[in-house]
């Protein structure tokens, strides 16, 4: 049985004439231990999709089914790494993670919880910054804290909403490896939402493009058959990688163009000829 299933999901915002159909006819199945990436343009409804899966919002129609049960609210089984870190600025790195761990394991003693916090801070290599506040950290460090917070709750599934979108290319590569490492250790189910096709191919088993909204829907899936661990530099010359990437980009560009031409309104210019003033001012 699939770990997570989306069945005929539709999501509208607003009502009456002001209704916008953000998502339409979304069907997706994710197996346990699988790493799935969804790529799409900004504003195509990716975050809405994430919020549906983690239970922050409910679909207008259709069902989100996790382990055979319908998702109606958030759960500790599905950990979320938010796009904008969402760390609490008045708490230190350690306190931010501690708060999450305490909620996930309410029965453990304080010492046991602290050990978990330290373990995960160590894992994202932030031990020297454990008593710092988010304000004092760089973007990459903050995102690592967010990763540690989500993972420390030991969720069965990790949902990542453009987790690396705001980072520079180098930090990005670094964190990609880190996330893959952690995922590889106990093969949790993972869903990555991204706007970077390369990132998707490098990290995921399967890539599914999201056709941009309104009425965003999932496109055909692309399987990535590159053995792990993947080497980023070697990947650039890999034929398989290149073909897959080109196919996905082509697909995304095509629907992008199609959308543009749909929107474009033809403006018909009146037929005018410039008037000639030659000899006009001679009396």
């Amino acid at each position, binding site marked *: 049985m699939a770990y997570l299933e989306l069945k005929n999901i539709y999501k509208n915002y607003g009502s009456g004439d002001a209704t916008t159909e953000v998502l339409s006819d979304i069907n997706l199945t994710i197996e346990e231990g699988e790493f799935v990436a969804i790529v799409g343009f900004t504003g195509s409804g990716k975050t809405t999709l994430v919020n549906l899966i983690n239970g*922050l919002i409910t679909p207008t129609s259709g069902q989100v089914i996790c382990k055979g049960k319908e998702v109606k609210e958030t759960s500790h089984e599905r950990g979320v790494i938010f796009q904008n870190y*969402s760390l609490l*600025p008045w708490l230190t790195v350690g306190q931010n993670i501690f708060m999450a761990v305490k909620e996930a394991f309410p029965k453990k003693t304080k010492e046991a919880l602290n050990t978990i916090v330290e373990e995960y801070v160590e894992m994202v290599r932030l031990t020297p910054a454990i008593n710092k506040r988010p304000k004092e950290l760089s973007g990459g460090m903050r995102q690592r804290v967010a990763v540690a917070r989500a993972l420390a709750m030991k969720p069965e599934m990790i949902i990542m909403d453009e987790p690396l979108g705001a980072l520079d290319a180098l930090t990005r590569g670094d964190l990609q490896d880190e996330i893959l490492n952690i995922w590889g250790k106990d093969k949790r189910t993972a869903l990555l939402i991204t706007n970077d096709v390369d990132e998707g191919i490098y990290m995921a088993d399967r890539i599914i493009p999201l056709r941009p909204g309104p009425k965003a829907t999932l496109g055909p899936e692309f399987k990535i058959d590159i053995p792990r661990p993947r080497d980023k530099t070697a990947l650039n010359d890999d034929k398989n990688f290149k073909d897959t990437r080109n196919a996905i980009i082509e697909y995304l560009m095509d629907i992008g163009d199609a959308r543009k031409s749909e929107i474009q309104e033809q403006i018909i210019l009146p037929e005018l000829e410039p008037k000639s003033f030659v000899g006009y001012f001679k009396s």
Partner: protein
Amino acid sequence: MAQDIVLKENKKSMVFLKPITTIFKGKLSKEKWLLSAKKTGITLASVLLFLILWHFGSQALYNKEANYKINKTLKEQGAAAAEAERACIYSGENNCQPNTLPSPLQVWQSLQLLIADHYVIKADKKAFEEKMFATNEALAAKGKKKITYTGRPSFIDIVLTSIKTVFAGFLLALLIAVPIGIVIGLSPFLKSAFNWFIQIFKPVSPVVWYLLVFMIVKTLYIGNSSDNSFVISFISVGLCAMWATLVNTAMGVASVDKDYINVAKVLKLGTFQKIFKIILPSSLPLIFTGLRITLSVAWMVLIAIELLAQSPGLGLFVWEEFQNGANDSNSKIIVAMFVIGIIGFLLDRIMLSVQQMVSFNKNEAI
């Protein structure tokens, strides 16, 4: 680490002292010394300019008033009387001084007089207490009330009374406004229930608040002969000043960043935990901005309310001096004005430091 940051930030609020403190620290490069000397110099120069303008301004007013007096005497009583008046005025005789804006020097003398007066009264009070000690012991043994000193309060006592009133009022405002603000902010339903109340009572003047509190407290104190002016004035001050805190708290609680609410949902925090761990901490900066406004409003309305309530604070002092019309009354009023200003400034700085201490976003507090 957190402590370090807080300490550093604290100094920021005392930035006006920076030139002086850096000099005392003695760790200065030449340029920095020059820069802080410049800053201090500019401040001192502006103070000096202010004093000079004040001095000449008060002198001009003094001359105008003096000339008017002499001319009036000349018209009504003849040249000889006018000459006598002129001599009287310029001899510095107290009875015939023109009543106008005092010069800085007079104000300075009044301040010294008030402080000297404080020691006289203090000694007086001590002597009285010593004298009544035996009697009071006897009265206490019988279970009767002690005889206390009822002489006039000194200027320092007056200032202390005012500060006490303001803090009592501020505390009252805090205890009323913060909890109500949180409840209103949390529930849009209660917000609409309370909104008319806030909108109508917020702009009411301190004088009217005083009258309202007076009506209620007077009745509650019926049959009780003790002085209720303090109670009336601090309740009025609190009610008058609490609105900024109430509105800011409600706004802070209602406008918590949606990301934090999402975090609370994903972590599955309970209602109370959500309030105490997410909503309150994130609205603390706004609550403290409100409290800072409340404290400065409290200090401002205090003067008017003390005057009406006959509470022995600065407000009453200013009013009584004005009614008194003695030779040095005007300069005492100006002394009170400066004391009010300086204490208000210090209170604001204290609140700013506290505000920066609790504020996680250090740039937000202004």
